[in-house]
Each structure stands twice: as structure tokens, then as C-alpha cells.
């Protein structure tokens, strides 16, 4: 098994050397092909009108040049107002939302008045919708437009992360009760099964997760019945699917993420793997032009003109390990170790550069020049990350940031709740960001099982006065089922008994799932448990995954032998991989051993053994001994989104054992702030830019 040694120049090793054995780039190809097919169904040059929320996801699967290659003449954002199209064909590409359809209908009516004739095609993502047809019919333009679909499903964000990139999945499900996401997720998981084989075992926690698993197994039944040889491709490489719905663990996203990538997301906001950073960080003055192609091909799009008004130009940068090998080493580190790591890389790089002085012969010099390109790209990414860290550091030093961390930690330890509530009130008075305040308040409510009615009303009043009364719907939806993360204690008498019973048992979970790390010794080197991602708190969602996939990890540290670990090992992460012998992953046997704990968490629990075509009928495939040299992959699907910290923690779990890789699938990447914003229906600062011409990213 390859391990990325700290001195290695080869940047290809990711996830600490245990890259998933599944090739997720197939999914990207699938998405690309789907788009090309959809575009080719319309003959000739066409004007593409694009739903701005799709630009990000599409940017991850394709480039503008590909679209141009397939006849896209010009691109526009889908937004209200007239559309000027030079071509006869106009193709709309959007998600089936009422607001988009209304705009389209409006534009169609406008264009109908013009003399030039157009043909219209509407591509709906991911599938056709009766709703859209109905609205177009009501608007009287159904006859003028051809409707078809573009089935965009999982998009690979990294080698081991695939995402549906649905921004509003959480709100749709937990506030609106719209289960479309579940159905779409089911379809996407079916595609995974078609590509990689059937999941022999499907487990889920949470009501929506149960709904998803039952839909999935039923659908799989139908498909396998109707076409037996459909689902057996490459089976045996997946060992199970674990579905965790966001409602099961609301605590984790409410906390501030403390990994490098997580912190970037918290403070700068990563959207579709792209982060906006000052141009100066991306410019490469010392690097010749040839580097541009390799280093930052995805950043060539000009920044939107509107943003140039800000003091420094900001540019979108694609955070990806393919062009930025250093990111793979940094992204999952606790932010406190990032500095050390950067320092180390800088020294390594410096030494590599110094090699040139040792070059005596021409051959040696040629060798050095040959390596120069790699060094320069390393150099460039080091610049970038040093710069990014420098940007983050002042933000982590603000009083607000530290105050909120302190409150979070105290709440997690259930220490003096009322003092924390006072502190929250103080933060409101100081005018802290609304998102932070709401997150803290929800956290207080969930961990303490509710807030005293009087206090709660007072705090809610403070919020409404400080941030505006238009937050009332937000507060209402936070407090009403199925979300119920901001509730009074005791609950009002009218609440259903079932709702009352579903109170979150945080304090007992803290013990049974070992959520807060106990041992003092580990303070200096936190990365020996998943809890390092929150500097001491282990995400419940990942503990649940461990309940299935790494049972030992829940009870104690799998890498517990501390004396084995060299204290001076600067690179805690990779050093451990080498020094601690890995444990062979145990077979998947469901929730066994943790039934009570899991049952105590509100929401249903499922564990289904699927019939694998080609396998022995009736046999439980999961108990087939794992082949040592062939690792199996466990797919973890987060319904309602997951955080970067959860990804980091899962990668950590994956590193700890031999023979099991994780593929993380999610409806989207979330963090506490984005959740609050989507619940409050605050439009994120528009990613679309102001230009009428659309360009992907």
C-alpha cells in the first residue's frame, strides 16, 4: 500500500495513501456525455440560457470550450428581462423550479412578438417535471417549447467525494417537506449501483434516510427483476451503503469547522469547490507563463465586473488536488497544524531549489531543470496556501470567533448553560453575525434539550429586534417539527407526544459515543481520533458510521498506542500511518453492538441486506471474508449535506484500517452558516455575477 511520505515530491498520493479504489471520474464522464447528448439533440448553433445555480456544478464537469464545441454560440444567465438571441435555437438549461419556468415563459412571450422565429428547447435537470409542463401550459407557451431532460447526478468533488450539489436540499426536506431530493438521491444511488455493483447491505439512520433506503431497495428490486444483468457489473467492490440524514446530527454543522478546508469554508465560503480569493494570491509573478496552463486552468475566467468595485479584485479558484497537490496534504489538517506543515513544505522546497548549487555537471543541471517545472508548481501552490492561511489567521483572532468557539465548547460539555445563553445575548448586543448567533442558539437548544421558555422568548425577541422581524419565519421553522432544533423546555403542552419523545439525547450520546475526547495527553497531538476536526469533539454522524464500519473506533482510539508514536514526528498525519500498524477492517454486520445507542437517537433505523445478482441466493454477502489485497468500498451518503470536517473525519477513519475505503456521497456540502441562510431563504451573495453573458465560473 502506497503511503505518502512527507519527503515525497510526488503529489499524487491522496487521503494519506489509501485512494479509493473506485474510479469516480466515470461519473464526470457520464455527466459530460449527458450534457453533450442533450445539446446535440438540437441541431445547429444555439444560444444557451443557463440557470445560475447550475453554473457551479456544470463547471465541475465540463468547460466552456466543450459547450462551444457542441454548437453553443452564446450563453446567458437565466434571469428576468428580455433575451436577445442571435441564433434560431434557444436552449434553456435549469432545475425544474417554478421561478425559472416563469422567467422562461415570460421570455418566450416576449420573443414571440419579434419577427425572427426561434425554436426553444428546455432541458430540465435532472428530469422532466409535470409541474413545469403545467406552468408552461398555464402561461400558454407549452406548445412552443420542446421539453427534455439532462440527468445530472453525482459530481465528483474529489477522488473520494461525490456530490449532487443541491444547494437547498436541507431546506426542501426539513422545512418544506418536499421529498424530491430523496427521489433524486435514490436515482443517483441507482446509477452508482449500476456502475459499481449492488450494495450488499444498506443501512440508514433517520426518518428521511429510511425513506431513501426503502425506495432504493424497492427500486433495485424492480430493476434487477426486469433486467438481471444490469446490476452486477463489478459487484463485490462495494460492501455497503450507509445513509445518514442530516436531521440525525444537527450538532455537527452548527459547530465551527476547524480543519483547513472547513475553516476556509466557514470564513471564505467554498461554493462548488471554488473559493473566491484575492487575485494577488493567484498571480504567479515568478512563474513563467507555461505554468499557467498546468497550475490554474480553471481560474482563467475573468472576474465578474460587479466585483471589481471591491477594494481588491477577487477571483474564483478551484480547490482541487489535481492541480494543487499541496491541498491534499493540507485540507484535512486541523488548522493549528497547517502552519507547521506549510513551514515544512517550504523548507523542503527550499532544499530542492538549493540542489542547483550542487549541480556540477551538465547532466545534473539538466536533471535539475527537468524538475524545475514541478518545483515551480509546488512553489505556486505553497504561495497560495500561505496566502490563504494568512487571510484566515486574522479572522480566527477576532473576539467574535473565539467567543463563539468558547461558547460552543462549553455547550458541548454542558457547562453552565445559562452563562452561555447570557454570552449569546451579549453577542447579539455586540452585533455579531446573525448566522453565528442562530447557530449558537440552536446548539444550546439541542445539547441542553431545550431552553427555558422565558429565556428563549427573550433571545428570540433580541434576534428579531437586532436583525429584523423578517427572521420570524426562520425562527418558527427552527422550532417546529421535523427540525425542532430551537425549542422551549419544557415543550408546550399541545406538542405531540411523539415530538416530545424525539428529544435529542445529547448528554447520553456524549458518553456512549465518546463525543468529547477525554485524555489530556492527546492535547498536543489531537489527530489521533476523528475529534481532531473540531479540536476535541467527534461528529456524531461519523461516530454512527464508525458504529458500522469501525466499531473499535467508537469505543477507544484505534491508534491508541501513543508510545509507539515518535513525539518529535512533525508530520503527525502521515507519520502515524507508517508507525502504527493498520487494523484489518472488519466485515459489515450492520449496527450490531450499538443498537441501543443508535435507537436512542430520534429517527428510524434500517438495515437491509440486498440480494446481489450473481451471488448465492439467500447468503449474506457482507459476511464473505474480505480479501486482503482487494479493499472494498463503503459508500456513506449524507442526505441533506455534509461538512468538510465530516469528510476529513471519514478520511481519517479510512486511513485507520486496511481493506476498507470510503466513498463519501452527499446532496451537497454545507456548513452552519449556509444552512441557516438557506432556512432563512437568504439568497447567498449571488454567485452569478452581474454580467449578462454567462461564463462557467
Amino acid at each position, binding site marked *: 500500500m502506497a503511503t505518502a511520505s512527507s519527503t515525497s515530491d510526488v503529489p499524487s498520493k491522496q487521503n494519506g495513501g489509501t485512494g479509493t479504489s473506485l474510479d469516480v471520474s466515470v461519473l464526470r464522464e457520464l455527466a459530460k456525455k449527458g450534457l453533450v447528448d442533450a445539446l446535440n439533440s438540437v441541431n445547429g448553433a444555439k444560444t444557451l440560457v443557463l440557470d445560475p445555480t447550475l453554473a457551479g456544478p456544470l463547471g465541475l464537469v465540463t468547460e466552456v470550450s466543450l459547450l462551444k464545441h457542441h454548437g453553443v454560440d452564446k450563453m446567458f444567465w437565466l434571469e428576468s428581462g428580455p433575451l436577445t438571441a442571435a441564433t*434560431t435555437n434557444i436552449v434553456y438549461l435549469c432545475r425544474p423550479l417554478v421561478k425559472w419556468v416563469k422567467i422562461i415563459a415570460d421570455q418566450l412571450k416576449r420573443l414571440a412578438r419579434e419577427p425572427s422565429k426561434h425554436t426553444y428547447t428546455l432541458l430540465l435537470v435532472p428530469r422532466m417535471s409535470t409541474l413545469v409542463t403545467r406552468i408552461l401550459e398555464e402561461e400558454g407557451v407549452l406548445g412552443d417549447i420542446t421539453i427534455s431532460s439532462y440527468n445530472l447526478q453525482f459530481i465528483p468533488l474529489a477522488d473520494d467525494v461525490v456530490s449532487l450539489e443541491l444547494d437547498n436540499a436541507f431546506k426542501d426536506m426539513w422545512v418544506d417537506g418536499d421529498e424530491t431530493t430523496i427521489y433524486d438521491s435514490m436515482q443517483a444511488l441507482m446509477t452508482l449501483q449500476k456502475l459499481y455493483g449492488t450494495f450488499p447491505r444498506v443501512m440508514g439512520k433517520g426518518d428521511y434516510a429510511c425513506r431513501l433506503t426503502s425506495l432504493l431497495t424497492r427500486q433495485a428490486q424492480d430493476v434487477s427483476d426486469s433486467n438481471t444483468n444490469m446490476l452486477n457489473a463489478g459487484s463485490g467492490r462495494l460492501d455497503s451503503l450507509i445513509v445518514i440524514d442530516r436531521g440525525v446530527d444537527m450538532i455537527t454543522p452548527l459547530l465551527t469547522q476547524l480543519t483547513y478546508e472547513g475553516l476556509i469554508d466557514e470564513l471564505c465560503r467554498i461554493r462548488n469547490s471554488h473559493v473566491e480569493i484575492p487575485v494577488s494570491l493567484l498571480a504567479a509573478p515568478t512563474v513563467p507563463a507555461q505554468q499557467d496552463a498546468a497550475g490554474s486552468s480553471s481560474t482563467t475566467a475573468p472576474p465578474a465586473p460587479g466585483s471589481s468595485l471591491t477594494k481588491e479584485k477577487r477571483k474564483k479558484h478551484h480547490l482541487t488536488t489535481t492541480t494543487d497537490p499541496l491541498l491534499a496534504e493540507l485540507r484535512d489538517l486541523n488548522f493549528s497544524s497547517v502552519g507547521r506543515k506549510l513551514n515544512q513544505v517550504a523548507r523542503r522546497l527550499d532544499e530542492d531549489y538549493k540542489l542547483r548549487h550542487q549541480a556540477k555537471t551538465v547532466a545534473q543541471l539538466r536533471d535539475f531543470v527537468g524538475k524545475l517545472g514541478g518545483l515551480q508548481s509546488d512553489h505556486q501552490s505553497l504561495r497560495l496556501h500561505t496566502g490563504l492561511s494568512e487571510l484566515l489567521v486574522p479572522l480566527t483572532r477576532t473576539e467574535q470567533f*473565539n467567543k463563539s468557539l468558547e461558547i460552543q465548547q462549553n455547550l458541548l460539555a454542558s457547562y453552565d448553560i445559562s452563562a452561555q445563553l447570557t454570552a449569546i445575548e451579549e453577542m447579539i448586543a455586540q452585533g455579531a453575525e446573525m448566522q453565528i448567533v442562530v447557530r449558537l442558539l440552536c446548539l444550546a437548544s439541542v445539547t441542553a434539550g431545550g431552553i427555558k421558555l422565558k429565556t428563549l422568548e427573550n433571545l428570540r425577541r433580541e434576534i428579531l429586534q437586532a436583525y429584523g422581524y423578517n427572521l*420570524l419565519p426562520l425562527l418558527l421553522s427552527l422550532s417546529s417539527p421535523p427540525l425542532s432544533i430551537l425549542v422551549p423546555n419544557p415543550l408546550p403542552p399541545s406538542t405531540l407526544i411523539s415530538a416530545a419523545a424525539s428529544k435529542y439525547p445529547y448528554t447520553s450520546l456524549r458518553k456512549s459515543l465518546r463525543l468529547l475526547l477525554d485524555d489530556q495527553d492527546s492535547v498536543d497531538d489531537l489527530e489521533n481520533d476523528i475529534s481532531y476536526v473540531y479540536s476535541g469533539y467527534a461528529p456524531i454522524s461519523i461516530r454512527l458510521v464508525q458504529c458500522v464500519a469501525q466499531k473499535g473506533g467508537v469505543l477507544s482510539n484505534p491508534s491508541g498506542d501513543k508510545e509507539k508514536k515518535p513525539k518529535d514526528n512533525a508530520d503527525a498525519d502521515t507519520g502515524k500511518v507508517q508507525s502504527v500498524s493498520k487494523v484489518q477492517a472488519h466485515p459489515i454486520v450492520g449496527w450490531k453492538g450499538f443498537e441501543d445507542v443508535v435507537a436512542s437517537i430520534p429517527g428510524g433505523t434500517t438495515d437491509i441486506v440486498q440480494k446481489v445478482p450473481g451471488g448465492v441466493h439467500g447468503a449474506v454477502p457482507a459476511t464473505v471474508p474480505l480479501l486482503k489485497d482487494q479493499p472494498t468500498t463503503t459508500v456513506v451518503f449524507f442526505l441533506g449535506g455534509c461538512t468538510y470536517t465530516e469528510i476529513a473525519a471519514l478520511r481519517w477513519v479510512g486511513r485507520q484500517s486496511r481493506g476498507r475505503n470510503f466513498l463519501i456521497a452527499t446532496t451537497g456540502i454545507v456548513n452552519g452558516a449556509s444552512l441557516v441562510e438557506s432556512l432563512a431563504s437568504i439568497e447567498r451573495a449571488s454567485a452569478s455575477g452581474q454580467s449578462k453573458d454567462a461564463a462557467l465560473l
Partner: protein
Amino acid sequence: MAEHPTATWQAMQDGTVFYKRHQLYSIPGKFPPLNDFVIAGCRYGGPIALMRDTTKVIALGTAAPSFSKAQIHVFSSAGDVMLVFSVWDHGKIVRFGWTADERLVVLNEEGVYRLYDLQGEYQQYSLGSDAGELGIIDARIHENGIVALTGSLTLLEIKEWNGGKPLTLANPGLSQPPHSWAVIPPDFTISRHVEVLMSVESSIYSVDNLESVDQQLSRGPFTRMSPSPNGKSLALLTYSGLLWVVSTDFQRSLAEFNTTDAPGAEGEVRQIEWCGNDAVLVTWSSLALLVGPFGDTLQYFYSGPTFAITETDGIRIVGPDSCDFVQKVPASSVSVFRPGSTSPSAILYDAWENFTRRSPKADESIRTIRPELGSAVNECIDAAGREWEPFWQRRLLNAAKFGRAFLDLYDPTDFVQMGQALKVLNAVRFYEIGIPVTYAQYTQVSPSHLINRLTARNLHLLALRISSFLSLKPDAVLKHWACAKIVRSKPTATGSGKDAELDGDDAVCRSIVEKFEKMGDGNASYADIAKRAWEVGRATLATKLLDHEPRASDQVPLLLSMKEDRLALVKAVESGDTDLVYHVLLHLQRRLPLGSFFRLLEEGGNKLAPASKLLQVYAREQNREMLRDFYYSDDRRVESAVLCLDEAFTMMDPSSRIASIKSAQKFFSEDKERGFEAKMMDEYSRLLTTQQQLEKEADGKLSFFGLSVNDTIRTCLVNGMAKRADKLKTDFKVPDKRFWYIKLQALTSVRDFEGLDTFARSKRSPIGYEAFVRHLADKGHMKEAASYVPRCDAHKRVDLYVVCSEWRMAAKECKDRGDKAKLECVSVYATKEVVSEFSHRERVGAGGGFYEIASVPARGLPPAAAPTVSWYTVPRAGIITHCCITDPSVGQVHE
């Protein structure tokens, strides 16, 4: 013994290529005289449709009287009448043709087309109202669509047979109908979109949905035009009778032949059709002339008019006495049977014949071809597939079997499959079935297609036997059978009245279910069968059948049309497919009165909750009025209130916004538990009113409307309306702390430091003075910040001075308190701070050499770990004792 295969061969191109004509069926007198009819033949050995050609005069009495004008007769290739039906009473039939799945498409001049299956059932679609007005003057029907020529000489295209909207192709700008025209189906064009070729004046226009291109030919006009089955070549006939074959991109001229020279050709050319992809058949009333690629010809004489149907590997000719098939002799047959052939397969065949004659030559022959024996066996198997007579098929397979015995390793799959295929082919070629499909065609269209064709002819037993013989799923056959059974069986079987009907239904249902459980593998779609039952008006039977359907999503549409609304909705929700739920919801919303629609959702309780949520999502965007009614009828006060609020936030007009807020407040107040919300809304409307007043006072220079309480106060303070701010504070019971922070921030932002000072002195600060220092320092007003330090707690002063970068004061403070250690700290940090600031500037200036960069992290990126470390020990200790944070640049030195 059947005649030797080569008996029907005829050589062409100096004996290198052979064509053969063999009789498929002998059909004397089965077809009416074909020259009086408009005819359309279906490919792959499919049926032939005839309709009387009304332009021709026929003598009454001589022809069979049944051929009245408006009837279409469908014959099998064996000459059996499969179906007779009359089409429209009005509207002239422009054209008819066959789809890939053997349905007859009939198009009339009003642009209406029907798809008839072989049982006479039809679906009707239209080319749209425009086409109806203009009229359709001609059309070409290919297997997957129609291209119609309208009265205004524009082209319309229909893709697929699902009643889709017609597409307008590019306008060729004709002034009169083309002399002839043809269509290349989308599967065979480069662009994958249909291409139309029209002979206009002396040239040809090729038209697709983008453009119309004049191909700049000069030999036209062309009276006939026929594209080859693979769409690569085009056969053209000029007025002068010259047959000209060109590639469809008009780049290459492939062959020329003067049809007027043909011996025995009399009268007008009837048809120009392709025989496979490499020869063209030209027919006259009693002659069929096969023209090869190099202009060589073969003649076939008939006693009367013929009709030729192009197949992918040959051509079918229906004559007065026989139905023949003409094809190029396949390579494998040539190899085995060509006189004097010395190919391994020919030798193998010869060896086998010797073997059957017990001649020792057999062994000798086998030895000579030993190295090529494998391919010889394969060729014999293939040749068997090409033969029509079972006698020769058997002989060739035997030869293959014989050769196989000499091979050490041989995969018998091909052999077995060929045997199976031939058995099936011979069965369907039987004259009573009448599907003369060749092996090549059979492999092209797949066995399941063949089975579908059999079921379409109601030959269920044969279809079932074949599908089990080929181990295919019998579901499709069973389904078709069940549908046919329902249609045929009469509801009143025994007894009388209602009971009898029920009995009948029960019996039918039982027999269907039994058959399915016995033969199928348990997941046939009952929903489709139930749909059929419903369509023929047997609702009870449909319901019964539907109970057996496992897939919810299949049940829903039928349940809807059966008006089983509740059940349909429940099933849709169960399926998890939100689109299906919307389908039902929108359908019901349109059909039911609003009241009962709501009641249906409300009574559904938990089961229908997802549906009701979806309705809300939809209505919130599209139909608010309905949503309001929905909430109202369901007594959902809170939702009603939120809806009002939602609307209020989008309103620009102050008074209507206030009104909306008030109604929200009213809704909240009607719910006992929403007292808090009601109070808040009350506050909000008060705030809005106050803001209106404020705007009036400010003469419209300031905008207040819609701001939060905080922002309102802030705006007041910033604009010197301190009195109003105070009043707002008391009116809205703003706590002191928050008010102080707002005022602090507001005054700092306008640099009113004097005002701030007076404010700070007005009474003891509820937020302490540290907040002042920090906020001012944060905004860069170091000097002002420092002036508040003396008012803070003594032990914090050093740190606060540090915050303000007042090193000297900090040092002095240390000295005053006699804190030596701290003094040292401060002095070290002071210099360091300056140094690091300096070095930072230096580095930026230096333009980022790598060594400098390397030095940045070396300085030690200040750990978020520092706080991490501390707060994580804090909770357990229970005392807030921050340990000394070691990072200097923070400037916070705690004790």
C-alpha cells in the same frame, strides 16, 4: 430432394457476384391486380397494405367487389388477408406507410394521422392546426417518423410515434411541388437528423431542420428518387429514362444505366427500389430489372404488375403468382456452393457428402483443410443460416457437425444458436404465419422484436413457445395475451345481471393471474392490463387486476382515470416520486372543486402529508390565492400568518405592508400558543409606523422603512436624532447593553468622539469600558481608544494599552503595578511587533522570493491551536483560566 441452391443463382459482373431469386410463397390469385392499388409494404417480411388507387379507372365487376374505395386491406406476404378496415369518410388519404413495429400509419390531407395495429385498433394524432389549414399534399413515411409536405410547400417532421409536436424543417422556398422527393431517416444521416431530398428543376435540394442546400445538379428533373437502405446512395431516374446512382452527398457518381434500352421494358417505370445496398431494381408492369453497380443487369419476368419492397439484404417482389425474394448471394453460400469452389468450407461440405456415401475420400479432404477447419465449420454454419430450405439447412449443419468432430476445441455456441434460430425462422416463415424474414434481418431486429410481431398478430401460443424456446421472458407475450383476452371475453358469461358480470370478471382475472404466476416470473405489469380493461369499460375487472400490481407508480395514472383519487394519491406518495405526486395533485386540483380537493388532503392525515407539503411548495410560487384558502380551510393559523409575512416582505408600499403585518398578527393571535409571535408582529407594525413618521420628519432624506430596530436606532444616532433614538429604546424596550453597543458603534462610525465621551460619562457603562477601547482600536482610532483605558479594570490595562499600541503607557502601567515580568514581556513584544511589521513590509516589497516565503511559516503560523488548547481544557476545569497565549502578535496577554 429440393433443388440445389445454385439452381436459382444468376451471375453478374463476369461471374464474380451472384444474385438469386427464390420463391417465398406461391400466391396465385390471392392479390388483386396490383396496378390499381396504392401499396405500402413493411420491411422485414412484414405485411402489405393496399388501398384502391382512385385515380385509376377499373371495370366494375371484374375486380373483387369488396375492394371499395375507402378501405385498406392488409395482406401478409403469403397473400392472406390479415385485416380490412375503412378509414375516414371524409378527408383524402395522402399516404400510408409502416412503422418499425408494424403499425400502419395513415395520413390524410387535413394533417391527421392514425396508427393502426394489426388488430385494427388505432391511435390518432395531428400535425397541428396550421397543417390542417394549409392541407397536406404529400408525405414520406419512414420507420420512425413522417415528413409531410404542406399546401404552402413547407415541410413538417414528426419524430417517434408518440404524438409529439411537429417540427418545421427549413423552408426550401419552392414555387411548385417537387418532381419527386425522398427522405433519409435520421439514423442514416451524418447529422442524425432527418434529411429530405427534393428534385427541383434540374437540381436537388437537400433540406434538414437548419437549412436547405441546392446541390447544383444539372441532369434533372428527376421523376423517381430512392435512397438506399443505408442512406449512402441515391437512385435517380431522369425524364429521359436514365437511371443514375449517386452518393447522397452528391460527391460521387456511382452508376448509370439507360432504362429505355432495357429489352422487354414496356410502358412506364413502376418502381425503383434498392435490393440491399448495392443493386437497384427497376420494375415495369411485367418486368423487373436488377441493375448492378457496374450497369450489368438481370431480368425477371412476371405475368402481371408487381410490387417490390426493399429489405436491408435484398428485395421482396410480390407478383401475381408468387412472392419472391431477390438478394445477392451471401459470401458464405458462395464459398460453399459456387461450382468449382476450393474454399475450405466447400471441401468440408464435400467431405461430409463423401462421408455419407461412405467414401474414404472424406478423411482425405478433411486432412487437406485441417488448418482451416475451424473457419470452414463456421462458414458452413453461416451458410446454413442463409438457406431457405430446411433440407439444405440440415445438410449444411450436418457438414458443420461433421467437421466439428475433428476439432479438439470448439465452442458450440454458434452452432446451437444457429440451430435454434433456424427452427424459429422456419416456424415463422410457414405460409400460415407469413413472415418471410431472413437470417440477416432476424439478427438485425432481435428475437424479441420478432416475438412482438407475433403477438401483434395474436399468435400468442407460437410467441410463447418461441420465447420459452429462446429462453426469453414471456412477460410481453403474456401481457398481450391478457389484453386480448379481456377484449374478447364477454362480461356476461353465465347467469344474469350484476352477479354474472362479477363472476365473469372474477373468472377472467383469475385465469390471467394464474397464467402469469405459472408462466411469468411474477413481475409482469398488471397495470397495463388493467388499463386495457378500463379502456374497454370493465372497471371492476380493472380494479381487481390492479390489486395485483406491485409497482405503485404504474398504478397511479390508471387510478386517476378511474377516479380513484384518494388511492391514486396514496400510491403516488408511496412511490416517493414527487413528480408523480404533482401529476396527481395538479390533475385533481383541476378536476375537483377546491373544497373537496382540500378535504381529500386533510383527511389523508399523515399518509398524505408529503403531498400536502408539495402542494404548498407549488402554491407558494404559483397560486397563492389557493394556498391562502387551503390554510384557511384547514385552520392553519401559523402558516397563514407566515404567508402574510412572506408577502409583506416583498411589498414596497408601506401601508399595504403594514396591513399585511397586521393580518399576520391577527392570525397569530388566534393561536393560543403564538402569543409571542403575535406580540412581535404588533411590535413590528408599530416599528413600521414609527419609521414612516421618522421618514416624514427627515423630509424623506433618510430612509428608515423596513430597517430593523437596531438599524433604525443607528440611523437616528448617525443623523443626530439622539432624542428619537432614546424614544425608540424605551418604546421597544431595547436592553441597555444592546443600546450602548449600537450607540458606541454609531458614534464611532461618524467619528463623533466628543459625543461618545459625553455618552460614556452619562452613566456607568453597562458594557464596561473595555468594549469602548476594543471597538475604537478595531476601527483604527488608537488615540481615542487609549483614553478609555484608565476607566477599565486595573489588571487589564496593560493588555488594553497593548491593543492600542501604546507601548509606553503599557510599560508605565506595568511599572506602576510593579509587575516586572510583564514589563519584560511587553518590551520584548513591543520590539518584536515593530520588527515583524517591518519584516512584513519588507517581504511584500521584495516581491516574494521563495526564501522569504519560506520564512513566513517559519515565524510560526499562529495557531488557532492556541485558543484551541485552552478552551478545551476549560470546560472540564470549570474555571475560565486562560493560560498565557504565547503568540505575540495577538497582543493579548492573559493571566
